[in-house]
């Protein structure tokens, strides 16, 4: 079993008719994900992927027909906010947003609106959710991750792939991986998702992959020290970053001494988290905790 989704979860794809949308839908089906439909306004009534997947004009009609419980947003930045609002308004339980480059003011409004809603939003700028051998909701490539009992939460996608690969070399497998997204404002943060891993019987140990900027890691440390029952290992990247420069991810920036790697490492260590210095140290360390 995976967190948030499983093989039976009915999933919709917002933006299914683009090249990327089609390619990813195909990939997700291949990984065992139950894709039941796609949304592209203006193309409702048509079918894609060799006539296997129906297209709808709106999320509303798609949900009425398919009773889907999750949606993945793969649309350009200019329409991504609208696609997310559609999901929030119809109260779909889970939205995963892959789109990179959503304007910050759009996310300010979405995050504010979400406070009073029950929808879980993963992303934007997230690679998605992945349980090896089970299901994949996102853009996670076929990498050599194996099924196991380590949960992973990460802000970065490529760093997480690297870590899963390193772990697989040692035969260490993954229960569920969730990429929370690399933007300054995201839906569910580390501290919102840790409770799911705490309750998950398949997760025995936890890895947090954090980076400079913001305070998601600090909030996670606070949650871990007070509530989390499983051992946690963390790697924080951006230790060598100069202040006030964005390092690739819109969210990776140190401003006014806030968001530095050292501060995050200190508070996580105080919360009892084991800190890895490099990705290649992780397999040895995770065996010990």
């Amino acid at each position: 079993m995976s967190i948030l989704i499983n093989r039976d979860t009915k999933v919709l794809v917002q933006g299914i008719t683009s090249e990327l949308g089609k390619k990813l839908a195909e990939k997700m089906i291949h990984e065992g994900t139950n894709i039941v439909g796609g949304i592209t306004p203006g193309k409702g009534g048509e079918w894609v992927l060799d006539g296997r997947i129906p297209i709808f004009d709106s999320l509303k009609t798609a949900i009425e027909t398919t009773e889907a419980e999750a949606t993945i947003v793969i649309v350009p930045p200019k329409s991504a906010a609208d696609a997310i609002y559609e999901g929030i308004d119809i109260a779909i339980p889970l939205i995963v947003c892959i789109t990179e480059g959503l304007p910050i003011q759009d996310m300010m409004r979405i995050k504010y609106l979400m406070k009073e809603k029950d929808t879980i939003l993963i992303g934007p700028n997230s690679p998605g959710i992945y349980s090896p051998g089970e299901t994949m909701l996102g853009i996670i490539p076929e990498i050599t991750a194996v099924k196991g009992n380590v949960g992973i939460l990460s802000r970065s996608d490529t760093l997480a792939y690297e870590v899963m690969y390193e772990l697989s070399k040692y035969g260490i497998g993954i229960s569920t991986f969730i990429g929370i997204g690399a933007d300054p404002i995201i839906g569910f943060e580390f501290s919102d998702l840790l409770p799911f891993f705490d309750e998950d019987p398949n997760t025995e140990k936890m890895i947090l992959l954090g980076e400079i900027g913001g305070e998601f890691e600090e909030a996670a440390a606070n949650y871990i020290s007070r509530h989390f029952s499983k051992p946690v290992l963390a790697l924080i990247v951006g230790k060598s970053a100069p202040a006030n420069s964005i390092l690739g991810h819109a969210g990776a920036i140190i401003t006014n001494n806030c968001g530095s790697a050292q501060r995050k490492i200190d508070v996580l260590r105080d919360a009892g988290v084991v800190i890895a210095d490099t990705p290649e140290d992780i397999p040895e360390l995770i065996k010990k905790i």
Partner: protein
Amino acid sequence: MKLHEYQSKKLFNQIGIPIPRNKIIQRTENVGHIFNQFGGTVLLKAQVLTGGRAKAGGIRLARTEYEAENITAFLLNSKIHDHPINKVMIEELIDFNEGYSVGIYFDRRNGIPELRGSPSTKFWQREKTYRSPLLDTFSLGIDPIIGIHTYKIRELAVSIGLEKRYWDNFIFIVEKMWDLFTRYDALMVEINPLAVKKENGLIPLGVKIEVDDNSLFRQPEIEEFIDTTAYTAQENEAHKLGFSYLKLDGEIGCLVNGAGLAMATIDMIQYFGGHPANFLDIGSGASAFKAAAGMRILSEDNQTKVILINIFGGLTLCDQIAEGIITQLESANISQPLIVRMAGNHSENGKKLLEKMGVQITDTVQEAVRFCINYIGGNK
């Protein structure tokens, strides 16, 4: 994206916030004429995108036409913190009593906009207490959906000790600042100082606007403000290709796919005692063309003594990157030694291609990093 002062002031003016009269010049020809037009005694302000401009001599007072011409000519031939001065703003001098500061900022911690203000230093002198201006910043959260309430602006006016007779003027200005913030997808709209003029009324003297890079697709007016002269050739090239690139002060050039992995790579260089020359993320799903372009950016930087390429094949396919590396090696004369670490999708094939070309390959990032550090160490 930070806007130049003259760009920010243009937007302030357009939205209806009165600002001091100004003219932008790139040559000294008209300086005398403008000096007289503004009634004598002007400020000359270098338009550069760097902090500490006043301290570095980028804001100067000119009392005579002759002074104005001389200083302008001098500024146009100088640099501030390595930024060339291409434009100078000539601004009328405003006689003022005291200056407050007020701004609307993206508050990352709470994920909402925040209204912030500080009292003038004069105000605290009046109260006969001294406090650091930073400690006296008052802030109020703004509902990003509803917008800014007038009563909150009034609350701020009270907190910063603004006299009652200026409240309406203050509310007018802050409401317009909110219009600027939302209309231009800003992350910051700031006035410092907001001056109380001798002859009554408030006027912004220094203003700053920073716009969200992600919003440029719907901000054509701001996109036109991009000043390519403010960046190095490498930075402009990287920007065009959609890379994220940052120059650092070491010698080990690195090219990585994905920002998180790139951060981890420069951290490892530092951890093992080396110094990265740059941060370069060529993005996920990068092509052979992009790999070649990335290598060109690194090799053209004289500070780069050795090149480390770290690719984890996910959406990016390692053999395509290998092809890009080979194209670049064949077409350009790359003087720096190169080491490549590849893992993940299509890495076996990628490594084979590189081996044929005699390129050094490692399996772990650590080995690659150590190779670079040893190389630098041996060449010092």
